[in-house]
């Protein structure tokens, strides 16, 4: 479910960075509140554990295929949701940098889609309420499967929303949703079952590890829902501002006064800045504008080919020069 940079517009990437950063800042605050120095190395090593565990494939009975775990709910059950969220951020950043799994601009989206829903929503709204009156095999299975399925469904839906609002893909929203949700329902179920299997093993052999995770969250469901609501409104509001094709409040007001939704410019600096803004906005006036054919016609094709060719030629010349220099240095 890792998103690539190419699927995003800078605006959507930026909004999701801001949302994920807000959740990270809150988590840092909560972890610091009851800071236990021992927890820092545990979080680090657990991050590496999830990283390694993600690489192991689990055969799905009767299907011939296999799946793997993502680890959000598992970490939240063992470390508590806030520490788990920070650990997931570290994992996603390393995956993005070292393995090119997810992009740098898309990191905010990936944190939100894969870490936030699992560590906060899946944990507080499902795992915690189900297991709050004590653990049992059945409760662990129910909580893990529901937690994983729901968080993956939300994550997959967010991928569709972020890609569609970015306006990069021509894939209609309904088709994209219809393709993503069922696949992630199956993935979520498998992940939930693997998570449950691991948690049951821990519960039967070293139950004190699950108690440590449970102690970390003196947090009411009501408070979580309030926070979720605020974030959803903030993110939804910011994204819909980017996406909406209807005039916003300011445009509407200008329209009422001048009869046009945009003020007329008087040239000069305004026009220059407007041109810069139009190019960086990506979604000028909520659409991709009227770029002409494939950029700027045939001369554009020739020009871009020239730039690329020139660069590669210079690089080759530079490489030959470096090799010669090295060879000369070796001789002398």
């Amino acid at each position, binding site marked *: 479910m890792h998103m690539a940079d190419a699927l995003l517009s*800078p605006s959507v990437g930026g909004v999701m960075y801001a949302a994920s950063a807000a959740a990270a800042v809150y988590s840092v605050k909560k972890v610091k509140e009851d800071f236990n120095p021992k927890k820092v190395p545990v979080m680090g090593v657990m991050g590496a554990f999830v990283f390694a565990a993600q690489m192991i494939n689990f055969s799905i009975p009767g299907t011939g295929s296999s799946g793997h775990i993502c680890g959000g709910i598992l970490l939240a059950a063992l470390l508590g949701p806030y520490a788990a969220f920070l650990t997931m951020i570290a994992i996603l950043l390393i995956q993005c940098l070292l393995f090119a799994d997810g992009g*740098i*601009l898309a990191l905010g989206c990936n944190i939100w889609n894969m870490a936030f829903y699992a560590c906060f929503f899946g944990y507080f709204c499902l795992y915690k309420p189900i297991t709050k009156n004590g653990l049992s095999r059945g409760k662990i299975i129910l909580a893990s499967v529901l937690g994983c399925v729901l968080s993956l469904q939300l994550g997959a839906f967010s991928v569709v929303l972020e890609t569609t609002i970015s306006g*990069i893909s*021509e894939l209609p929203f309904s088709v994209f949703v219809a393709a993503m949700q069922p696949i992630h329902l199956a993935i979520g179920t498998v992940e939930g079952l693997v998570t449950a299997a691991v948690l049951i093993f821990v519960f039967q052999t070293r139950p004190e590890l699950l108690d440590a995770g449970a102690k970390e969250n003196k947090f009411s469901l009501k408070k979580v829902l309030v926070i979720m609501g605020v974030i959803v409104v903030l993110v939804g509001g910011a994204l819909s501002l980017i996406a909406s094709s209807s005039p916003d409040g300011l445009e509407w007001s200008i329209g009422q006064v001048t009869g046009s939704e945009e003020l007329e410019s008087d040239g000069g600096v305004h026009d220059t800045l407007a041109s810069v803004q139009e190019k960086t906005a990506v979604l000028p006036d909520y659409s991709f504008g009227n770029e002409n054919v494939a950029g700027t016609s045939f001369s554009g094709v020739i020009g871009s080919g020239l730039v690329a060719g020139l660069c590669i030629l210079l*690089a080759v010349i530079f490489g030959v020069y470096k090799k010669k220099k090295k060879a000369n240095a070796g001789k002398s």
Partner: protein
Amino acid sequence: MGKLSDAIYEVHFMDTIASKDSPVHRVHPLVKLIVTIAYIWFTVSFGKYDVTGLITMVVYPVALFSLSGVSFGHSIKKLRVILPFVILMGILNPFFNREPRFLLYGLTVTNGMVSGLTLFIKGVLTVLGAYLLIATTRIESVCYALNLLHVPEILVTQILLTYRYITVLLSEANHIFEAYSLRAPFQKGVHYKVWGSLIGQLLFRSIDRATGLYDSMVLRGYNGNFRHSRLSAVRWQDFAYLFVWGAVFAVLRFTSLASLLGGLFV
């Protein structure tokens, strides 16, 4: 298991190439991080039909591969991780947007074809941009740059510790899985009856290792605060690097350089 040993090799390989010396390796990590983010930001900001403008952004990876001596061949391997999804999305574009855009030797090129191509180019360029950052900058230096950007200390420490322990736990997982494979040959994946115990054993080993790590840190004076090694200050060459690339990106994005150059010949 191939996947696990591949990942161990990959971490070691990236560590090795990032430790090499070149003009690009010597640039301050904060400056490289900013330039990389700017490059990706400018690249994805191109319109979905602006193929020619986007192609000019190839200047950055070509120049950096050349200056840093990083192998281009290895970066191709990185593309295979994220590109399948991007290609799938791009391939579907022509089916959903059949509006004709222009004629090419009698063949109608549709908006969907152009936007699919743009998506593919963006995918390649953004992955190469990120790859060049980590291929020329050690992860410790990236963490140092994050520190300078006031990313919370606890998060930076998490990244460092997770990174340091990845190879250790990948090896541990590899041993466990190899032992399992020897007892269950020709089996695809881990049987559902041992899902819990197999990962659970890895989990316990990880926790025991974390306890040992904590004890050894305490013996060396750890009191909850981390001290990161400080790198040299930003030099004038770093400012020049930042300025030059900033100017190049701005020119490529805000001017129709491709058309201007092409106009000289057409």
